[in-house]
């Protein structure tokens, strides 16, 4: 009896302690001044000896330390280089996990080639180790979802790399519909699609059906039809993975025929079609700089991002989909390699910050360090792109979510 009382008291005390601890953390983390010898705001020139004031999850002020007053009660964090939290414009982590076992691979449903109704949010594991991993390198936002391995593999979503569950993490529950053209979406022997031409006939039939349904008031109510009608109404873009030149042209042809909003993905042979892509006005989420040159990606160039940028095409960078080891790339490293292959540091950083935010339609909220935007920051002890530099901390929504030196 006595023991039980003691237990109750202990539980109460622990609870009280945790409450106070949590409260004090929240206060401490709520108001932060992040000083950087270089602050890449990605809105104008980098600031030397700059500071970013963070209050209540948002950026309160950005500027040189000489002109921005740091309030006395703000927790000060210093770093050599401060950047906006990095954005990975296309990945599959959260749906696919690091163990690469059937139970943690949820980015591809094998039962059919056209499944636009599959929501990413129903499969997203916010606690996945790979999310923690990329967060430790400064990645704060990911566009993730069904993998590019079926004609329409499902939906994508946009999430912050934090949050105790999917609801807390999610920024956009349905961002795009993942479409894959070329070899990677061919079905098993004897099943459709078995050729590139068949892929298009199936896709076009699906879109024609959606077109018809969008005009009917008594259209059949089903998940697949509902989502495809939203595609036809240009509410949701198709994320079309197309690497070979003919597949890129196919994507552009499809977009024209159905007046679709699309985002080109991968685009390993975009180098051969810069004029055509530029004329289409569609953005490109280009393959990882260090992606393996095989299959439809055989002709990729490490200078593709630079070439797209130089052509005036909106471009962002991705970590992509990996089937084996490593299970995910780190978009920071891919941007680093882009910086070494034709892009300036600023333009390479833009691929994983503001330019990515624009393509994802979230540039009003993330992607640069500006007053009023989400307080998502990454800190480094040197040039973020050098292999030998470290990410020293990551802040998401004004909270320090990582302080390991990675």
């Amino acid at each position, binding site marked *: 009896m006595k023991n039980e009382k003691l237990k109750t008291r202990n539980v109460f005390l622990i609870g009280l302690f945790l409450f106070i601890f949590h409260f004090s953390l929240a206060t401490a983390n709520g108001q932060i001044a992040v000083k950087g010898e270089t602050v890449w705001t990605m809105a104008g020139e980098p600031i030397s000896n700059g500071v970013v004031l963070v209050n209540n999850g948002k950026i309160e002020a950005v500027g040189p330390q000489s002109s921005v007053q740091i309030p006395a009660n703000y927790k000060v964090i210093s770093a050599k280089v401060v950047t906006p939290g990095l954005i990975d414009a296309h990945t599959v982590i959260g749906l696919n*996990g*690091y*163990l*690469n*076992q059937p139970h943690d691979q949820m980015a591809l449903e094998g039962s059919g080639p056209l499944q636009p109704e599959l929501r990413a949010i129903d499969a997203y594991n916010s606690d996945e*180790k*790979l999310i923690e*991993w*990329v967060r430790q390198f400064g990645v704060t936002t990911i566009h993730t979802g069904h993998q590019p391995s079926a004609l329409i593999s499902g939906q994508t979503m946009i999430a912050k790399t934090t949050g105790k569950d999917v609801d807390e993490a999610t920024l956009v529950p349905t961002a795009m519909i993942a479409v894959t053209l070329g070899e990677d979406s061919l079905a098993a022997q004897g099943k459709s699609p078995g050729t590139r031409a068949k892929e298009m006939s199936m896709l076009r039939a699906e879109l024609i059906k959606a077109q018809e349904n969008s005009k009917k008031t008594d259209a059949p109510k089903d998940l697949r039809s509902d989502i495809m009608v939203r595609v036809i109404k240009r509410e949701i873009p198709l994320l079309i993975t197309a690497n070979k030149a003919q597949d890129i042209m196919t994507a552009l042809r499809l977009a024209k025929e159905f007046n679709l909003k699309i985002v080109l993905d991968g685009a390993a*042979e975009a*180098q*051969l079609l810069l004029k055509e892509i530029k004329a289409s006005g569609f953005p490109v989420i280009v393959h990882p700089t*260090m992606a*393996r*040159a*095989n299959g439809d990606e*055989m*002709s*990729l*160039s*490490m*200078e593709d991002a630079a070439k797209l940028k130089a052509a005036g095409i909106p471009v962002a960078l991705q970590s992509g989909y*990996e089937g*084996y*080891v*490593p*299970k*995910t*790339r*780190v978009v920071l*490293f891919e941007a*680093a*390699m882009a*910086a*070494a*292959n034709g892009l300036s540091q600023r333009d390479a950083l833009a691929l994983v910050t503001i330019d990515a935010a624009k393509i994802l339609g979230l540039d009003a909220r993330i992607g640069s360090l500006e007053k009023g935007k989400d307080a998502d920051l990454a800190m480094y002890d040197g040039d973020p*792109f*050098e*292999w*030998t*530099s*470290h990410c020293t901390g990551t802040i998401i929504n004004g909270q320090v979510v990582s302080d390991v030196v990675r």
Partner: protein
Amino acid sequence: MKKFFYCICAIWLFVCALSAQTKPVAFINARIIPIVGQPIDKGVLVVQNGKILAIGAAGSVTIPSGAVTIDAVGKVIMPGIVDSHSHILEPAGGDASGPIQPDVRVLDSLNVNSTSLRRAQAGGITTANVMPGSGHLDSGQTMYLKLRDGANKIEDLEILDKDGKYMGGIKFANGTNSIRAGGGTFPGTRAKSAALVRDQFIKAQEYRDKIKKAAGDPTKMPARDLAMEALVEVLDGKRVIHWHTHRHDDIVTVLRLQKESGFRVVLHHVSEAWKVADEIAKAKVPCSIILIDSPGGKLETAEIKLENAAVLEKAGVLTGFHTDDPITDSRWLMRTAGLAVRAGMSRDAALFGLTMANAKILDLGDRIGSLEKGKDADFILLSGDPLSVYTHVLETWVEGRKVFDRSNPRDYLVAVGGYGASNDRYVDDDEEDKDGGNE
């Protein structure tokens, strides 16, 4: 007339090639990282007949008269990179017939025209241990290759030992890759894996005993057995085992088997080395490691750490890096060393791991891996610090001949990729630099 012109050209090229053999080439004004010895800020490297003739600071080295002098100001010269574990040139080893196939030679499978050779040259790799895969307990014999240019058969890339035999090791694996549940003769468990390997070594010892007993009498010799012959080489220390192993318990199993049979072994991948670094050090077994962008991808690499390199350095283990190409691309092995430094390894150990450590791992420490007088003239010219992301390999030289030149459009295409970069070698592409850049 046209024919005559070509004929003259061919003769001229031939003469150039001949003279290139004898004319010394001196690189001056470069920052030289010799790996053995301190970096030299304003260094001179003289090569001739495929060997290093002299190396040292400006003023301390006499440049031979008649030498071709190349001003490498602003550039960094270091030894050619050695990759101790690669799958370039489309290697294939054992088939599905059994888990242990020491008789199989990777030599018999390699395609010298593969574009992967050019990518490795573009990455500054001058020597590679090309191996069959890890789906067997023993998938066959490996081959050490010099990535020379203009090869049209695998013999053109071989490295000969002092007996004139081409050099190579043998590939073993444990853990899950070589386990095939219900796979017939393949093991279903780790214990069975170890038992099958031990069994083979006992057989090999018996085979060796029979040979010894025969004392050269051909009538008493056992029947030739290709598998046993290879394993006897292993037992005699002439053929090193390159053992794919990830988990801490599998690593320790290799060490246990090593103690039992006395073979020479290099541990490869060693994802959980950080858990048993002291045991590895105590066994005096070197490691050939890979660092990957994220943990996982398979169960055995779930606990791989970038810190592995630093932990092994601290434990005093001889540690080299490998690409495991295509797991990491041969063009970026220097990045692996950069990531090792990021996770705590010293710069010196990281550069050593790219070069000299791997040379030792391949029993080539007296010939390659550092820039020292008398060693093979295998070296690379870099645009900057070897561990910087912004640095490019400008030139790769093997035995005094330039095999990669970033300023050559064709080589540039291989280095950065693009349309046509992944095509296998076209037949006539070497005529233009037959003289290996020694012009």
